[in-house]
């Protein structure tokens, strides 16, 4: 079947913070760019980010990008690539100032500068004391940032394809990416978009877990799209559990609460983080705090009738601070926890929050993959990935709070700049291969033709239960091995789903079926990579391998969909200009 076709210089898959930042860089330079999004751009999940954007502006105390770099590397448990981390931390101030110039309504200090708050893992002078580095707009930083970026794109007349779901990449016979196939939700019509360069910016996949701070649309589509096109997924075993999701609801309570002075208590009213992290206490990095909480609960010091959560106390901050700096949290606590935080503590549990792994890229945003068995990284021509779906890797085994919004801005911009260079050297569109749309059309045809089969919501629930149970905060070899078997069964079921509703117009059942195919790919990558990694590092905590093992495991894992195969590549310990930070034991 011949599909209708449109042509652009660049297509960007994703209208969240990273996609919009890249789009802006290209649209303002007069590039013919199209942005695709499953939802109206300001509904992308960047809108939910609360706490802040990390940048060593030094508005509150002395600060330096090198300290930020050190914190990020230490936070990553030394799995982050130091070239990319230096690149990001050095660019941080520039991209935050730009955002302010675009109109971002940052909170302000009395002298008119941007207000910054403390956040977990961020320190002065290489770990000496906490520093205020998170640039904030109340506790609605992501909302303010996403709207500002969208607004600036309106000004730049950027072209949007809203409520389109991108299904697959098109690669030609030499492996060059030459466009995408996408489905218009309102009409149910698939279409080909030919492009000289394609940027994936599809965000996270936190919906593989049962208990998650992520939105329903965070289904890892970019990862599924890349994996089906033969591109490996990097470091998928590393999922960040945020210490403070509202117990039972999953909705996030930002770390900014602890940044502003909130503390965690167990059932005895003890501030237990003092035991686990004497210097940074409640502001130690997230993997450390989540594990401590899990331990308190497992050892019977959880609060509540089932002793299954801990308490986040913030009433001592005073109503004024809470109203001014944490108004969104006040709203969330009242609505989702039935608690008035100006009086009572909020019940919280570690909750899946962020995917450190993703599509492997360099710091220009170009997707890189080993070619053959040479082990070297080679660029996949015409393809870029940015934001949470990408793995640069600046977050390594554990992301510091505020570093994701920063990552979106820095690498969104640098990918935009690099695409402009790429287009100079590649001014022509390449021919589409004969089979350009075949994979996507087969996926759609299967759903159209299946008269009976597995129920989408049941398979999705089985997947979430499996991942939650087998790849949680603490992991063991046995648990993971069972998880791999189970998830492969779930994946098989996902290949045999059927939907009752076969209509064209805004068929959300079809969309959810397509999303599920992506989710199970991400879930399988997660379990397989986690089982293989026999060490504890950052967010991967193995009870059977309690220590970090730099001799054997200071390397990134790469998972391939074909054969569910694993490969590895070294961590880049060589920064761009400064000296390397050698792996050390992490204490907070």
């Amino acid at each position, binding site marked *: 079947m011949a599909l209708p076709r449109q042509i652009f210089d660049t297509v960007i898959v994703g209208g969240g913070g990273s996609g919009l930042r890249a789009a802006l860089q290209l649209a303002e330079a007069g590039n013919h760019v199209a942005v695709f999004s499953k939802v109206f751009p300001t*509904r992308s999940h960047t809108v939910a980010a609360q706490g802040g954007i990390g940048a060593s502006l030094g508005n509150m105390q002395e600060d330096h990008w090198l300290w930020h770099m050190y914190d990020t590397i230490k936070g990553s448990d030394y799995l982050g690539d130091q070239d990319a981390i230096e690149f990001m931390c050095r660019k941080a101030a520039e991209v935050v100032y730009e955002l302010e110039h675009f109109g971002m*309504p940052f909170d302000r200090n009395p002298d008119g500068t941007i207000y910054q708050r403390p956040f977990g893992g961020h320190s002065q002078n290489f770990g000496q004391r906490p520093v205020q580095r998170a640039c904030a707009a109340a506790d609605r930083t992501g909302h303010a940032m996403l709207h500002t970026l969208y607004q600036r794109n309106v000004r730049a007349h950027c072209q949007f394809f809203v409520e389109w779901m991108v299904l697959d990449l098109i690669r030609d016979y030499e492996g060059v990416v030459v466009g995408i196939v996408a489905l218009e939700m*309102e009409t149910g019509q698939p279409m080909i978009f030919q492009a000289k360069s394609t940027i994936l910016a599809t965000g996270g996949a936190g919906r593989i877990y049962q208990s998650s701070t992520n939105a329903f649309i965070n289904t890892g589509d970019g990862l599924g799209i890349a994996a089906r096109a033969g591109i490996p997924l990097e470091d998928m075993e590393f999922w960040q559990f945020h210490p403070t999701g509202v117990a039972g609801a999953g909705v996030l309570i930002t770390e900014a609460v602890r940044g502003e002075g909130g503390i965690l208590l167990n059932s005895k009213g003890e501030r237990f983080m003092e035991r686990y992290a004497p210097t940074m206490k409640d502001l130690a990095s997230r993997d450390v705090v989540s594990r401590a909480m899990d331990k308190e609960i497992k050892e019977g010091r959880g609060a509540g009738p089932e002793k299954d959560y801990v308490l986040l106390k913030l009433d001592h901050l005073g109503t004024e601070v809470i109203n001014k700096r944490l108004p969104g949290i006040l709203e969330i606590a009242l609505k989702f926890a039935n608690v008035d935080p100006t009086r009572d503590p909020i019940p919280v549990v570690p909750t899946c929050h962020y995917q450190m792994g993703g599509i492997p890229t360099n710091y220009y945003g170009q997707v890189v993959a080993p070619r053959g068995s040479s082990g070297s990284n080679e660029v996949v021509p015409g393809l870029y990935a940015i934001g949470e779906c990408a793995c640069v890797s600046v977050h390594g085994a554990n992301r510091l709070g505020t570093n994701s919004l920063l990552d979106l801005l820095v690498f969104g911009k640098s990918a935009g700049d690099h695409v402009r260079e790429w287009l100079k050297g590649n001014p022509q569109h390449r021919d589409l291969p004969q089979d350009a749309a075949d994979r996507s059309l087969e996926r759609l045809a299967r759903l159209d033709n299946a008269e009976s089969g597995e129920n989408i919501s049941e398979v999705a629930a089985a997947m979430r239960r499996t991942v939650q149970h087998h790849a949680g905060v603490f992991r063991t070899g046995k648990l993971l091995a069972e998880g791999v078997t189970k998830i492969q069964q779930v994946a098989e079921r996902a290949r045999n789903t059927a939907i009752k509703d076969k209509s064209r117009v805004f068929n959300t059942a079809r969309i959810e079926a397509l999303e599920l195919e992506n989710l199970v790919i991400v879930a399988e990558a997660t379990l397989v990579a986690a089982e293989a990694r026999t060490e504890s590092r950052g967010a991967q905590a193995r009870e059977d391998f309690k220590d970090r093992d730099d001799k054997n495991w200071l390397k990134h894992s790469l998972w391939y969909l074909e054969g569910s195969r694993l490969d590895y590549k070294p961590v880049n310990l060589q920064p761009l200009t400064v000296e390397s930070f050698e792996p050390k034991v992490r204490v907070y």
Partner: protein
Amino acid sequence: MKFSIYRYNPEKDNKPYMRDYELELLPTDRMLLDAILRIKTMDDSLGLRKSCREGVCGSDGMNINGKNGLACVTPLKDLKEPVVLRPLPGFPVIRDLIVDMGQFFKQYHSVKPYLINDNPPPQKERLQSPEDREELDGLYECVLCGCCSASCPSFWWNPDKFVGPAALLQAYRFIADTRDEATSERLDNLEDPYRLFRCHTIMNCADACPKGLNPTEAIGRIKKQMVKRMV
């Protein structure tokens, strides 16, 4: 719990109809969205938009027992039975609870919703006092859900000519920003018998806003600025 939900699929229905559902609530069903999604697992043809499930993305605006709101932040325990759900009023229906928001966003874009300041920016941030920044509170938090405009009679009758409460709130968000230098251009853009002056201060919009924002007040302030510059 009993629900009555507006259904319309243009491919097979000649006209819209209400369909009844009954759902046994679980302790984990707190918000209306939780219940709708469980109904959807029984009937996958039910169409609605959703994403963040915490009231920040603005996807799931709908008419709930006669009042516009976001399903994800509407507690089930506050709802009378049967819970009657309809698409946002005044907007063309695409399918079921999904409406066409094209006109709404067109009006939003028409107010130039971005900072205008052609002076070269400083090396660092533009300075703004905390007091000046506070002027943006109650304005910038809008999630573009459309609940307000879909409750405004003036917008129902003239969605192509009247800017509507949501977009006017955003127009004022930039007028109020001390960093913006286009106030007079922005006022010119609205000085029109329809664009701004179709608002008759009925206040439906402020009642409807699930984020507690007050477009009526912002509209009043725009009008005041217009009067001020006339004298």
